[in-house]
């Protein structure tokens, strides 16, 4: 998303009227040199990055829209479940709901950002800053909430004795509030600087600061917390004599493996790019780097469609609620099709929601 990535700061928010190019051409100079005494082939031209462009033509319209749609459906289902079928009762519920909200906002901001980048920010500079800010905020809150879920499971399983005191609804709401505030705080550079920089020094600093924060706070911090918590969880589970434990261990391993598989490649390319950003590079290398970034970024985006499956729908209770939603949708559509009249959406199974 993005040449959409958060590291491409600068020109992003500019609208059409702001071309800063100083272009001079002289059409009246009739000098007739044929040989200018230099080899045309030694020139370093601006990089076209044609491979990356070709790749983006496929990834942009097809793969990103599939990710957005799947992410939208999955995360809305989680939110609908909590809204109409299952009140958030435990700490985990609160976290799962917040992760779904963060992921949903993320997939909603994504198409708008891509659309605006195509048409030089028709929605204006404010929309540009807002959308990129929302994108960045949800990236951070999403990742940090996954870390919160891992600590919650750690407390529930490893520190079971303290868990009644520590895992209250109030605590989890307070923690979620702080996670969102923190995510907003880390996104402030994006809100402020997603435009043309005022000086070279701010440009250099922010161009390094934003990807470094993303790598440190948006990847390594949650990764460290998750690895610590889930390792302890697995060790405790292995000691327990419970038939369910193998399934639990597999779930934990899947959660960590998917997290690493989705985000490690993207963060490595971000790191590589940040390290080499201000060095001179050959166009071929830059192109390969951009291709790697487009591919790994797409894999990272995929994570927001996998979260509902990995965290919510893997639970038996949640799956039952989910089955009920599908049934209700199905019943409603049956009535709708057979009678060709509008229906208020309530079904006869006693559930008390109306849409």
């Amino acid at each position: 998303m993005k040449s959409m990535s958060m590291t491409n700061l600068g020109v992003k928010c500019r609208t059409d009227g702001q071309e800063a190019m100083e272009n001079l051409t002289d059409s009246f100079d009739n000098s007739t040199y044929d040989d200018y005494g230099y080899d045309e082939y030694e020139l370093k031209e601006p990089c076209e990055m044609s491979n990356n462009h070709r790749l983006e033509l496929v990834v942009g319209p097809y793969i990103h829209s599939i990710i957005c749609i799947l992410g939208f459906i999955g995360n809305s289902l989680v939110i609908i479940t909590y809204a109409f079928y299952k009140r958030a009762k435990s700490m985990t519920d609160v976290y799962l709901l917040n992760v779904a909200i963060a992921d949903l906002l993320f997939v909603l901001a994504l198409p708008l950002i891509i659309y605006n980048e195509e048409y030089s920010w028709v929605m204006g500079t404010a929309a540009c800053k807002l959308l990129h800010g929302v994108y960045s905020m949800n990236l951070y809150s999403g990742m940090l909430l996954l870390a919160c879920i891992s600590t919650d499971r750690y407390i529930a399983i490893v520190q079971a004795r303290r868990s009644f005191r520590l895992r209250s609804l109030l605590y989890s709401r307070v923690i979620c509030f702080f996670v969102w505030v923190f995510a907003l705080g880390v996104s402030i550079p994006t809100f402020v600087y997603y435009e043309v920089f005022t000086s070279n020094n701010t440009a250099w600093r922010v161009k390094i600061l934003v990807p470094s924060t993303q790598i440190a706070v948006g990847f390594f911090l949650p990764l460290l917390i998750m690895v610590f918590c889930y390792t302890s969880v697995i060790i405790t589970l292995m000691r327990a004599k419970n038939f369910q434990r193998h399934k639990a261990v597999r779930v934990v391993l899947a959660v960590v493996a998917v997290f690493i598989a989705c985000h490690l490649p993207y963060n490595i390319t971000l790191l590589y790019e940040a390290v080499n950003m201000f060095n001179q590079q050959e166009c071929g290398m830059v192109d390969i780097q951009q291709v790697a970034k487009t591919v790994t970024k797409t894999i990272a985006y995929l994570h927001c469609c996998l979260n509902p499956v990995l965290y919510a729908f893997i639970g038996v209770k949640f799956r039952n609620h989910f089955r009920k939603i599908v049934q209700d949708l199905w019943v409603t559509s049956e009535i709708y099709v057979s009678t060709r009249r509008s229906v208020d959406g309530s079904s006869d199974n006693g559930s008390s929601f109306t849409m």
Partner: protein
Amino acid sequence: MVLIRTAVLALMLLTIGLFASHTSAVSECCRSYTRGIIPCNAIKGYSVQTVKELCHINAIIFYTKKGRAACTNPALGWVMTCVDRLRNKAQMVHNRTSQA
């Protein structure tokens, strides 16, 4: 529930529409400098790339009379000499046009 299905459908169409119009309009950037010197009389015009925008290095891009673009280092003397010549040329055109 009908509402939800309509919403999903609408979003699907919107997303596909938005992404389908995606054609790359990413600007090109200089990532390295031309070694050696280009004679000023081989240069037709120039543009400026700054680190303050999308690109990551400062550069002067010269457009040669043979229709090529050359990224050059603004820290070098000859680059600014050629830029000055182009500026003077523009000033001359200005003077001539405003007198006439």
